[in-house]
Structures are given as C-alpha cells and as structure tokens.
C-alpha cells in the first residue's frame, strides 16, 4: 500500500504523534496548534486546521483502532503549507462513497468527520485497503 502521498513532495518532519488514546488526541491538537502558529497561519486557519485534525484523529482512534500522525511543513514552488498524515492499521473503509457522504456516521459524532475536514482544508486525499488500514492526508496552504 502506498503510504506516502508524494504529489506534494517531501516535507520537513515537524513532529510524529502517536494516536492511541484520547490523551494523545489532546496532545496532537496542541502540537498542531503550535506548528500552525509557527508557520504563520491566521487565527481562523489555525482553528480550521486544529478542528479538521481533531475530526481525523478521532477517526483514527475510533475506527482505525489507533495509529499515528505525521506533521510536516511543505514547500511547493515557494508555496508553504502544513501537511498532516493520519495513518491507522484498522479494518479500512469498505464503502468509500458512503464514508464520504455528509451526515453518514457509524458511531458517535455527527457524521461530519471526513467531509467536514475536507471542507476545512485545502487538499485532501484518502487511501484505504479493507483489512490493511487507512491513510488520510490533508494540507493547508499559508
């Protein structure tokens, strides 16, 4: 399974976060907040990034049975961005079309996790192999 989205090139790794418990999710949100501030994102974009990350991180915990998050800074022809890659080794997504439908939820929440975070970020890609896990990549440009 291709685990790296190389479309936007290699980034500079800022932080690697484990996502195994709810506490990890709180720490990951704090880390993302810190890095997005460092990269000079506006208050609004910081809020959007942290909120999207919270949705995606919760997916990793609840559906992916835990995983990890890679935070990196990317630079594409002088355009700077923050890239988040969420990986889990859970059961994967069987019906991608359904998972990407607004309002569809399998557990708690409002069913806005994937579609909502897609709206909040600039780039969004998802790869999933049933039985192998799911990788979600999102980018916000500064």
């Amino acid at each position, binding site marked *: 399974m291709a685990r790296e989205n190389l479309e936007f090139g290699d980034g500079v790794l800022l932080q690697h976060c484990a996502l195994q418990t709810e506490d990890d999710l709180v720490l990951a949100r704090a880390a993302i907040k810190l890095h997005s501030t460092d990269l000079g994102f506006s208050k609004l974009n910081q809020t*959007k990034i*942290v*909120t999207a990350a919270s949705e995606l991180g919760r997916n990793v915990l609840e559906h992916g049975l835990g995983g990890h998050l890679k935070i990196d800074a990317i630079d594409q022809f002088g355009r700077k961005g923050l890239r988040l890659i969420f990986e889990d080794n859970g059961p994967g997504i069987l019906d991608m079309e359904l998972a990407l439908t607004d309002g569809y939820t399998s557990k708690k929440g409002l069913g806005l996790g994937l579609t909502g975070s897609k709206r909040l970020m600039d780039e969004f890609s998802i790869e999933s192999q049933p039985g192998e896990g799911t990788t979600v990549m999102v980018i916000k440009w500064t």
Partner: protein
Amino acid sequence: MVERIPILKIGETLLVTIQVDFHDRVALALQEDLTDKIVTHSSKGVLIDISSLEMVDSFMGRVLGNIAKTSRLLDCHTVLVGMQPAIAITMTELGISLQGISTALTAEDGMELLKALMSKKQKRVSHGRQIARK
C-alpha cells in the same frame, strides 16, 4: 490533563467556564455532572463560557447540543457565551449548526438572556395559575 470541569452555582443558575482543551471523557462527564446539578439545585439556567476554547469539533458540538436538549427536558435553559469568531466560521463550514442552543457574545449578555428566558417562564406559570383560579 484536566479530569473534570468545575460547575459553579450562582442563585438559580449554574456557571461552567471551559478553560482548556480536554479529552472526550471529560466532555461526557460534564454532561452528566450538569444534569445531576440541575436536578439537585433545581437550577433554571446554565451559562457555558467557551471564550478560552480553541476549537469546537463535531464531537464537542454534539455534547453541547445534548447538554442544551437535556437541560431543556429538565426545565432549564442553556446559553452559550464567548464563542470566538474563528470557531463560529469553522463550525459553520464543518456543518455543525447547534440548533436549539441560545448564544450571547459576553457572559454579561448571557446572564441577561438567561434572566429573560427564566422570567418568561415564570410569567407563563403565574398566568396559568390565574386561569386555574378562574
């Protein structure tokens, strides 16, 4: 890591100030604690201050919505105050509407709104009594 959010009782209202980011269990505990306190103190209003909160995701939105719905069933009004503009925009884009929850910009305005909501109800009750007497 924060394990519980304090709930202050001021007269007929309960005051909750959310100061830091917390994990999901704490949000669910808050919902339970608030419901208990509303019943114990026969509270008529809950003021939730989220001015220090950095984000409201769909889970947090659901919890806030549930708190408002539950308290309404227990004859109590909820007012959410201090939402940062960035959070309002993000929530709207994410798709959270928080229907049925009253909001005010500041804690002061929130208390006024609660008072108004509570007195409206008292008027209704006294009006009902007059009808019953007739």
